[in-house]
């Protein structure tokens, strides 16, 4: 019974995501098709030389832009299954190759940042709540407010500056996969992870703090104290597990913003990842590349939220019955 309920919940959430993702695809596709001016002509003119109508027609045909919009849209969607997502207008390489080369790095930085930030944030937030009103609490709140205010790319610059003045050392510039050279890999990626993780940690700390404070006002905490449960157990058994739910929700929501932060921060650390590719695609109006990148980012966001919902439902049976 219990397991069946869970399975139905998961299927229900997944089914709800399909129209959203389809809507996202339609929206991106249309937004990028209303760009003023003929993008192919602009591109050819930028390359220099004489531009004839025949050349434009030929280029449009090569990129598949001479087909009717619904056909273009359908073949783009099909590409997510077959892997043929078109050719980048600017590098002339298949979109899927451009993305595959850079995905590993970006995913690793994002996960590193999320893990480090969560491991730091949950204890900090709980401490701030348990000692609410103390100097420790105010210090933690001030530091977290700083994390909300400082732009991640600037924090990245400060980290590089700090490493240079203190150790006369800069993170390596070339990417090596973690399974080949774990130390080289981490010494490059840990710093951008810290830069974007600061904001993430700040948000999670604040959420944990208010969630713990909220739970500590509940009747069952008073009951536990009244029947003489050790304070340590009241906190570890009764308070923290219940405060975890909103914290997990916010971790999921913020994970998407982490990717947003990477878009800007990869530039600072010279990382050749998805974010940088996206910025380059935007600066060059390479909308064949843009549409797929945005779709991937949006899909990650939607799927993360489903996973978060599932985790929350697994932890709290009330949420399963609710909807």
């Amino acid at each position: 019974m219990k397991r069946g309920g869970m399975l139905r919940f998961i299927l229900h959430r997944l089914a709800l995501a399909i129209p959203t993702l389809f809507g996202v695809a339609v929206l991106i596709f249309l937004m990028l098709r209303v760009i003023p001016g003929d993008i192919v002509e602009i591109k050819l003119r930028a390359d220099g030389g004489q531009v004839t109508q025949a050349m434009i027609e030929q280029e449009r045909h090569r990129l598949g832009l001479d087909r009717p919009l619904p056909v273009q849209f359908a073949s783009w969607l099909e590409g997510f299954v077959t892997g043929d997502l078109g050719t980048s207008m600017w590098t002339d390489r298949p979109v899927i190759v451009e993305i595959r080369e850079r995905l590993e790095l970006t995913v690793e930085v994002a996960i590193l940042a999320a893990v480090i930030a969560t491991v730091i944030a949950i204890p900090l937030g709980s401490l701030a709540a348990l000692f609410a009103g103390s100097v420790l609490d105010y210090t933690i709140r001030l530091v977290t407010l700083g994390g909300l205010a400082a732009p991640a790319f600037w924090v990245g610059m400060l980290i590089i500056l700090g490493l240079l003045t203190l150790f006369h050392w800069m993170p390596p510039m070339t990417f090596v996969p973690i399974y080949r050279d774990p130390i080289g890999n981490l010494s490059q990626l840990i710093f951008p992870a810290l830069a974007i993780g600061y904001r993430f940690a700040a948000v999670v700390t604040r959420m944990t703090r208010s969630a713990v404070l909220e739970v500590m006002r509940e009747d069952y905490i008073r009951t536990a104290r009244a029947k003489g449960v050790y304070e340590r157990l009241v906190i570890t058994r009764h308070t923290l597990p219940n405060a975890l739910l909103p914290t997990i929700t916010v971790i999921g929501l913020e994970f998407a913003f982490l990717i947003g932060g990477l878009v800007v921060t990869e530039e600072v650390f010279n990382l050749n990842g998805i974010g940088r590719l996206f910025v380059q695609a935007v600066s060059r109006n390479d909308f064949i590349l843009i549409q797929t990148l945005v779709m991937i980012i949006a899909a990650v966001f939607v799927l993360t939220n489903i996973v978060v919902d599932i985790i929350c439902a697994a932890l709290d049976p009330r949420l399963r019955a609710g909807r």
Partner: protein
Amino acid sequence: MSTTLAADRSGVLRHWARVTGRAIADQPLGCVGLLVILAMVVASIAAAHIAPYDPLDVDFGSMLAPPSGTHWLGTDTFGRDILSRLIYGTRTALTIGFLSSFLGCTVGAIIGISSAYAGGRTDLIIQRIVEIFLAFPIIVLALVVVTMLGRSRVWGIDLNLILAIAIPIAPKVARVMRTAALTIRELPYVDAARALGFGAPRIVLCHLCPNVMAPYLILLSAYIAQAILLEASLSFLGLGVTEPEPSWGLMLAGDAAQFYREAPWMILFPGLAISLAVFAFNLFGDSLRDWLDPKFRT
């Protein structure tokens, strides 16, 4: 006669002194935030009188000068005075921050409130569309809009940049405002208004809108902070404010990103300015929330 006037005036003064005193005692952090915001407003209005140099004045004689008596915060690769550029940059940050947050929050509020009032199928469809927009991280959507719209400058302000920042904000605000309006909709006085035969526009404008002002103002100040941060990020990427206009984000890009290892003052102060501005609006917004809506207090 004059004595009563004087007494009145001192009474008014005492009243305001008391109000200010209570505000400082209740929300010390919020008052600090407000103070910083006011200082920024003054700096952006009186930039020409405060700034020691012209922000666009190129002086190759003092390129990359470190902070000193003549250039308090140093100069950049063109020998331009960083302090002056920061002061003029306040104008850019505040204008774009306020206008895009105002636009995004107002459009979002209109969508959210009408969606809540309409209910039924209309509400469902609008919420589905809002959900689609919410699937993009803010900066990603802003960058797509930048690609889509290009640039259009009116009175020295890039209108498309404002739109690019406002569009991602609107659906987030719509979500929150819808929830707020839904609870108001169920209250007896809305039923009473309907029973009296008032039309939908009148109920929405006169009964719903005034009662969701509190969350609207809170969101407005919170998203000014977000918008300033977003403008800085877009300008840093070279897709927001363009040279030679002074913008804090732009001051961190280009040559600054190249030479900051030798000339750290080039990035230190603009980054601090961004952080301070965002910090101030966040503090102010938090206090505004506590003050306007004690329910949200945590």
